[in-house]
């Protein structure tokens, strides 16, 4: 009886905010494109590498809504298929980073002492180099490619989760209900699993939602610098990077993939904001 109330509250909070609604719509659209992409695109062949040089650099038309690129690929097709890649990569990076960072962070916050000191110093080290520069160095070293870009970004992303999980664990550790569990004789692992983790979930979910957006942006950035996906993989950032050479005459080439990056990242960030409103007990006030 009570869960429905929470659900109703969640729906109320989400629908009340235009921003959250926009976020949900955008994310749903991107998810839909990612799922249905191969079925709905007009020129599936253009993703596998088929080229059509006779039709290169066409302006938007009925046959090619977003125009064509420098080897005659339909830009709409590639942008839609790009959603799939970006989404996979964004979610992959976020999940992997969280899978590394959260256990470490909770361990640090719960155990404290030298273990925490060591973990946090390592985290600080990674956090002190702003991610993009480190990622560039890494990708340049490992060689470009979507997998290497992911590895690099996971490497620069996990410390954020350590920080969050650690601070959450620290604050939860001080909660009387943790003490109550200790009084009841609960071993550390049980406390971690049953109390600390579930109670740190809300901010983690919020962060992960936003991070999917940020990871998409980061991959696109690497792609833009020529360090992302390899051709013929349709990747938004790489498309803009190439399209840049065709500005200003063929402006649509750069505009569409960018608009999709923007929409995707915006969607996930707004969704994160909306989730925060739902999950943050403070917002229940009014």
């Amino acid at each position, binding site marked *: 009886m009570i869960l429905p109330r929470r659900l109703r509250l969640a729906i109320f909070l989400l629908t009340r905010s235009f921003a959250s609604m926009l976020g949900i719509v955008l994310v749903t659209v991107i998810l839909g494109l990612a799922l249905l992409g191969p079925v709905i695109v007009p020129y599936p062949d253009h993703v596998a590498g088929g080229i059509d040089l006779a039709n290169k650099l066409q302006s938007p038309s009925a046959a090619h809504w977003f125009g064509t690129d420098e080897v005659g690929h339909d830009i709409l097709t590639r942008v839609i298929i790009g959603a799939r890649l970006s989404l996979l990569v964004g979610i992959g990076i976020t999940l992997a980073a969280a899978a590394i960072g959260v256990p470490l962070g909770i361990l640090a916050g719960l155990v404290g002492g030298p273990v925490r000191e060591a973990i946090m110093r390592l985290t600080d080290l990674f956090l002190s180099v702003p991610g993009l520069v480190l990622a560039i160095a890494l990708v340049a070293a490992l060689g470009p490619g979507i997998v290497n870009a992911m590895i690099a970004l996971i490497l620069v992303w996990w410390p954020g989760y350590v920080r969050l999980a650690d601070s959450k664990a620290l604050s939860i550790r001080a909660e009387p209900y943790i003490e*109550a*569990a200790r009084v009841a*004789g609960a071993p550390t692992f049980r406390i971690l699993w049953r109390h600390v983790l579930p109670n740190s979930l809300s901010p983690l979910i919020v962060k992960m939602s936003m991070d999917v957006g940020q990871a998409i942006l980061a991959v696109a950035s690497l792609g833009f610098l020529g360090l992302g996906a390899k051709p013929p993989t349709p990747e938004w950032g790489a498309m803009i990077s190439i399209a840049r050479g065709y500005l200003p005459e063929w402006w649509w080439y750069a505009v569409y993939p960018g608009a999709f990056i923007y929409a995707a990242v915006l969607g996930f960030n707004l969704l994160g904001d909306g989730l925060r409103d739902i999950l943050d007990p403070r917002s229940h006030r009014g």
Partner: protein
Amino acid sequence: MTALLQATGLAKTYATRRTAFRAASSVAAVAGVDLLLPEGGALGLVGESGCGKSTLARLLLRLVPVSDGRISFEGRDITDLAESALRPLRRRMQLIHQNPSAALDPRLTVAASVAEPLRIHGLDLSRLPELLAEVGLPAEMLHRHPHELSGGQKQRVCIARALALEPRLLVLDEPTSALDVSVQAQVLELLAGLRARRGLSYLFISHNLAVVRQVCDRVAVMYLGRIVEEGASAEVLGAPLHPYTRALLASVPRLGAGGVVARGEPPNPAAPPPGCPFHPRCPMAEERCRAGTAPLLREVARGRRVACHLVGGHLVG
């Protein structure tokens, strides 16, 4: 009467880390406490905020590391026991927190919260409804979350959770201070009944003297990490010896208002005054109170201990 719980010279010092603008310092939250709780007894611990009541309670339950002194429980020294060795003992000593809202995991239902200790110790879960009934909660509450309960109900759940392991000792850290008087009376009734039925021992912390007098047969008064007076509650609260105890009693608001005895406010425990820690606020302070070490807790009459230079033999007998 055998001692269920005994502490000798128990001390806890907290060190604070240095930051950009603050030097490292240490706070003697508990500074040498001797204490004895007999089997089946109820000892009240009173004192102003920050005097170390909660810290003492957690020390006794081995929830914070001990800086100095010894603790024995059921006649066994538990000061240096490892957490794993302590775990079986935990069944017999339980804690009730001040704020029942914070003491319950917000994600667990009442049933899950109360069942948690049973699960940990691999006990039979079927006693759950019985437990709730014992603390006066209807069975329909089992599937509620804490935020759907009133303060008094939450505190009952906490008590049920503590009782689940059938403890002998219950440490209650201001169990009613977050509750309304009408609810407080309900909880006190419950606690009194439980003690009578189960023969529990209470270490009952409160700053409300009237409540302590209701619940406890003995009272210890704490000031700045030390016990300054201890004895049977009727005696200590009826005829206080230590100037601080007197000040406390005089401050309790009553119709028509009494005289103010204590000046000033509790000093910062990080920089306690020399000599008797109470001397800056004591209306009777003399030269000898201002210097030297803190007066020791002495037995001034049978079962009555006071730490004050000014309380001498003349009161004895």
